């Protein structure tokens, strides 16, 4: 009984050191108080800034609370009914889903590719990591500024580059047919570094013996990648995929900053719409109702992940 778990477990009272048990009982009573005491600073913040807003937001969704000062009080399900019948809500959800699909696939695959390439162990490790990970450390506003400038139709580097080959590039962010893909490219550039790191750490945890044994059996590099690397990366891929889905569903910053949801609402994500409804439209109650619809979608993804991962661990 040397570990903390052991001391605290049910076997604690039957521990051989009987002369200690009186002291332990006293300590346990003290621990009861101390436990809550130590947790209290966190708990105050937790209840005030997380749990209370979660509950209060739900209540607000049933009220006509407005930033303009007019509060029509309890309105029942009116906000919810309106939200579910609002075509803007559905198109924003559609845009969010489309952004999530378009961004998640490259953010998983490119991250894996970069990590595998870097993990070969070629000279220049410091530089590779700097290049791929550095953008992740930049604030969204900085990233948006950089890419607004890249995408500038006349003066941007992308269209200048295309011009050298006689191609007239589109007005990337102002054209409804290219705005979304432009935001996606920026997002991949910005955030792939995080997934890259998770893959890199996973690759370095694959035992060398596996590769050595495969080499003895005459397996080539490609064979080893398919039969060892990919299966060994599977848990990481599930993790990266879910984290990425959740992150992509919550897209706000770069869309708000680069296109404000335009042109013509073609890039408006659900969070951008919530912001518009609440803080430019002043309808806080209505924005809360949409927030909760979005919350349920996030919950579905999270719960699906928990179910999948608990099944996995049962199998293993």
């Amino acid at each position, binding site marked *: 009984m040397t570990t903390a778990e052991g001391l605290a477990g049910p076997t604690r009272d039957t521990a051989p050191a009987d002369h200690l048990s009186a002291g332990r009982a006293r300590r346990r009573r003290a621990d009861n108080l101390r436990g809550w005491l130590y*947790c209290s*600073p966190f708990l105050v913040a*937790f209840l005030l800034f997380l749990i209370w807003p979660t509950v*209060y937001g739900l209540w607000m969704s049933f009220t006509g609370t407005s930033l303009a000062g007019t509060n029509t009080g309890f309105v029942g399900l009116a906000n919810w009914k309106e939200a579910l019948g609002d075509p803007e809500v559905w198109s924003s959800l559609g845009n969010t889903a489309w952004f999530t699909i378009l961004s998640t696939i490259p953010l998983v695959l490119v991250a894996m590719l970069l990590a595998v390439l870097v993990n070969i162990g070629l000279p220049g490790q410091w530089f590779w990591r700097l290049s791929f990970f550095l953008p992740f*450390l930049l604030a969204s506003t900085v990233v948006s500024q950089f890419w607004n400038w890249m995408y500038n139709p006349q003066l941007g580097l992308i269209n200048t580059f295309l011009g050298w080959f006689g191609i007239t590039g589109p007005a990337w962010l102002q054209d409804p047919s290219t705005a979304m893909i432009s935001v996606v490219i920026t997002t991949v550039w910005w955030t792939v570094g995080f997934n890259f790191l998770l893959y890199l750490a996973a690759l370095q945890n694959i035992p060398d013996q596996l590769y050595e044994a495969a080499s003895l059996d005459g397996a080539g590099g490609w064979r080893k990648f398919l039969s060892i690397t990919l299966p060994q990366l599977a848990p990481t891929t599930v993790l990266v995929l879910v984290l990425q889905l959740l992150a992509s569903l919550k897209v706000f910053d770069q869309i708000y900053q680069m296109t404000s949801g335009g042109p013509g609402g073609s890039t408006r994500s659900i969070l951008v719409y919530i912001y518009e409804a609440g803080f430019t439209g002043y309808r806080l109650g209505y924005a809360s109702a949409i927030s909760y619809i979005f919350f349920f979608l996030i919950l579905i993804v999270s719960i699906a992940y928990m179910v999948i991962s608990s099944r996995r661990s049962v199998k293993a």
Partner: protein
Amino acid sequence: MSAATPTSPALGTSVPAVKAPAVSLSVTRRWKKPTPARIIAFVILAVLALSWLVPVLWAALTSLKTEAEAAAMPVSIIPDSGFTLKAYANVLSEGLVPRWAWNSLITSAAVTAITVTISALAGYALSRLRFAGRTMLISLIIASIMIPGQILIVPLFQLMLSLNLVDTLWGIILPQVVAAPMVFILKKFFDQIPFELEEAALMDGASRFRIFRSIVLPLSRPILGAVAIFVFIGAWNNFLWPFIVVNDANLMTLPTGLQTVISAYGIQYAQNMAQAVLAALPLIVVFMFFQRQIIKGIATTGIAGT
């Protein structure tokens, strides 16, 4: 509570008794012989890595041009009239960039100090103290991780209005200190620390808090550093919340201040890029010096947090 917030996180130091989460991003120093396959891989990697830097380099290049050169057609990569620091001089003399940088620094530092302190205390209690309601509390904290903070902006703003914290730095700081994943990461780390050390100290009559401060915290320096790095970078780059809670330009952080300037300056491209580069510079410099620690910190918390 300075003990809980490491001023110089010695991430490299390994504690023999404690097994840190298995994240080893080691660098192989001995290069293998170049084969055709390795040369091809090297070329692919070099092209990718360089193209990844292009947006940053292009912005830096533009920031060193005059406004006329930056807006000149056709676009020239290297300006005819040479480089100038004029855009930077303008930004630093007219704009609020230094002010925003200062606001960013103090809000991020405060968020980090408070988050690490309260999370470590709670994590320790949840790991070591058997108190009534402990398991319920753990479940509640874990479940709360699923609440996306972004959906709370509306009720949080209302709360800040009633607390009179709108347009204050505390309004930026306080809602960011709740980091349920960090409590959980720290709890898991404390769980791994062998109990013998603490038990011996308890027998000697040391108080719980003393044990926490002089045994547990020093052993946890690597994970505290990792959490601090993660929290600091998140706070430094946070956009949505500071953008909503602060409207006074003097109280803005770098990310939000920059956003207001995009609309205000309009087509002063060189100046816009100079601002963006200035805003990016502190983290780039810090990253160049502490690459290993930052990468390890992000990878550790990123993996352990899930």
